[in-house]
């Protein structure tokens, strides 16, 4: 076993205590990550020196703001294996996924001219999702289907919370879109992307990857994966809230009609009609989350300094510790793979006879911050026959002591509710 990282000192929030002086053990990184000082400094520094409207005006501060904003885009493109113009800023991954779904809707309603033909859906066209999706990569497609007459189909999950690769036949001739997660935020399972992309391509369908969990914890390369679109959020990657991004293959972004419309994405506007700028500006209407892109840039630098390979190795060890510790508590059932292969350090579980809210409460009382509920993935929970779970998830700043405290906490849950053997 290689050395674990030891960087929690970089994260001011982790120094605080909760519930009458208990050390905070933050195991909710799957929901949102804490931010290193470097990120907070970068964001504040921007606001103190370079804040102005971007892509406008000829004054020096505006020039600097534009430079900061666009260099964050360049850094992000490089970080995820994309070209500069293939990154569209959004407020979060959810908006990014909706952007794609609404491009299909708007094209289907006749916008975008002949260029947008590839985005027009016909009744009976199929959209394929999976049973492991976060609601953000399920509900927009349901809505699109309801509005266009397309049919929603899905790849089911296996009993241990992976995609059932025996059932990729769901993707067929009628499939126009395949939207799937790179890693489940419930089971932690990492998807083998290649066979899905291969089958989608063979059938002429576009691929949309939910990279929310993966981009934050693994090295990703969207070009190498051959994807058409991918969505992710800054706040999961040590960046600020309020910023996310869509990756879109250049040729496809070119063809898409806009989603949100307004200032800074137009060419010529008359009272009667409007022509639009090329991507990525076409999809960035109004004043953007500029300071937040600068914060995210600092987060990417921080992650790159560590190295995503090293981060992934660090988290693999934590996964092993988590699964091992949990295995020692017989009342606990993991919802997801129980080995570390192709798996993030995200572990959802049930405690026999104790509701997740109650589990979480007793853990919280010990300073252990976990997530309880359905984690925005009700169908995934239903596939396990439960409607909610407790989830512990690790990040760059999580250490072995955190996992130990967590396992001790689980024993206290068992004792407190008297559900011991």
């Amino acid at each position: 076993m290689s050395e674990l990282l030891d960087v929690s000192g970089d994260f001011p929030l982790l120094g605080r205590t909760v519930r009458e002086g208990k050390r905070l053990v933050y195991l909710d990184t799957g929901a949102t990550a804490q931010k290193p000082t470097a990120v907070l400094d970068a964001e504040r520094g921007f606001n103190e020196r370079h804040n102005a409207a971007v892509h406008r005006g000829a004054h020096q501060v505006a020039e600097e703001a534009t430079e900061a904003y666009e260099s964050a885009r360049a850094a992000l493109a490089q970080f995820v294996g994309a070209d500069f113009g293939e990154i569209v800023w959004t407020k979060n991954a959810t908006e990014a996924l909706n952007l794609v779904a609404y491009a299909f809707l708007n094209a289907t309603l006749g916008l975008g001219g002949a260029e947008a033909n590839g985005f027009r859906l016909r009744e009976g066209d199929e959209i394929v999702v999976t049973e492991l999706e976060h609601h953000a990569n399920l509900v927009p497609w349901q809505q699109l289907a309801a509005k266009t007459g397309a049919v929603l189909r899905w790849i089911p999950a296996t009993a241990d919370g992976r995609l059932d690769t025996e059932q990729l036949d769901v993707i067929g001739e009628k499939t126009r879109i395949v939207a799937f997660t790179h890693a489940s935020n419930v089971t932690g399972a990492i998807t083998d992307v290649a066979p899905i992309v291969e089958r989608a391509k063979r059938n002429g369908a576009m691929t949309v990857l939910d990279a929310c969990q993966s981009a934050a914890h693994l090295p990703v390369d969207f070009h190498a994966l051959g994807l058409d679109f991918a969505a992710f959020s800054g706040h999961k990657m040590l960046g600020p809230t309020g910023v996310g991004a869509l990756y879109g293959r250049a040729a496809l972004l070119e063809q898409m009609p806009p989603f949100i419309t307004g200032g800074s994405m137009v060419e010529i506007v008359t009272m009667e009609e409007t022509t639009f700028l090329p991507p990525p500006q076409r999809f960035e209407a109004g004043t953007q989350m500029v300071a937040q892109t600068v914060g995210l840039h600092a987060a990417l630098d921080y992650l790159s300094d560590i190295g995503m390979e090293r981060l992934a190795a660090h988290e693999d060890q934590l996964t092993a510790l988590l699964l091992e510790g949990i295995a020692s508590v017989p009342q606990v059932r993991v919802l997801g793979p129980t080995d570390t292969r192709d798996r993030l350090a995200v572990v959802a579980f049930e405690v026999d006879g104790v509701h997740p809210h109650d589990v979480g409460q007793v853990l919280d009382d010990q300073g252990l911050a976990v997530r309880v509920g359905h984690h925005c993935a009700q169908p995934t929970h239903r596939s396990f026959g439960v409607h909610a779970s407790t989830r512990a998830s690790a990040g760059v700043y999580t250490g072995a002591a955190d996992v130990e405290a967590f396992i001790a906490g689980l024993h206290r849950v068992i004792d407190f509710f008297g559900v011991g053997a």
Partner: protein
Amino acid sequence: MASAMEQLYQQVILDHSRLRSGERSLEHPHGESFQVNPTCGDECRVQVRVTERRLTELGWTGKGCSISQASLSVMHEMLEGESFDDAEELGELFRELMRSRGAELEPADQQQLEDLSAFTGVAKYPARIKCALLGWMALRDAMLQAQHD
């Protein structure tokens, strides 16, 4: 002194979450309501049968945490057979308790709340207040429906 968490999980609550008084479906309810706690997907359905603005029968089903289940169970014990007015008054008092952030209640209120006063500790945990109130929201809705029919 008991910790905040021990105040939250008073024995009354733990007992009621196992007792589940009134957990059953009614036939031909005059009013019913289904409520979901969006955080966790916890659900409950409350059904009432009514005669002259009186809850002659009150039944509930649902899945949820100890707080939400205990709250339903106590609700059933205290309100089945009671008048709408009493139910509304108690519901209002309970909602007030939940807004109290765990402050001590007046002795008169405490007396009226009976077992419900065990939920005082819930008010210190904003995320759990919805759990305690879920069944009461459903009851209010169900009563409204029964009134209108």
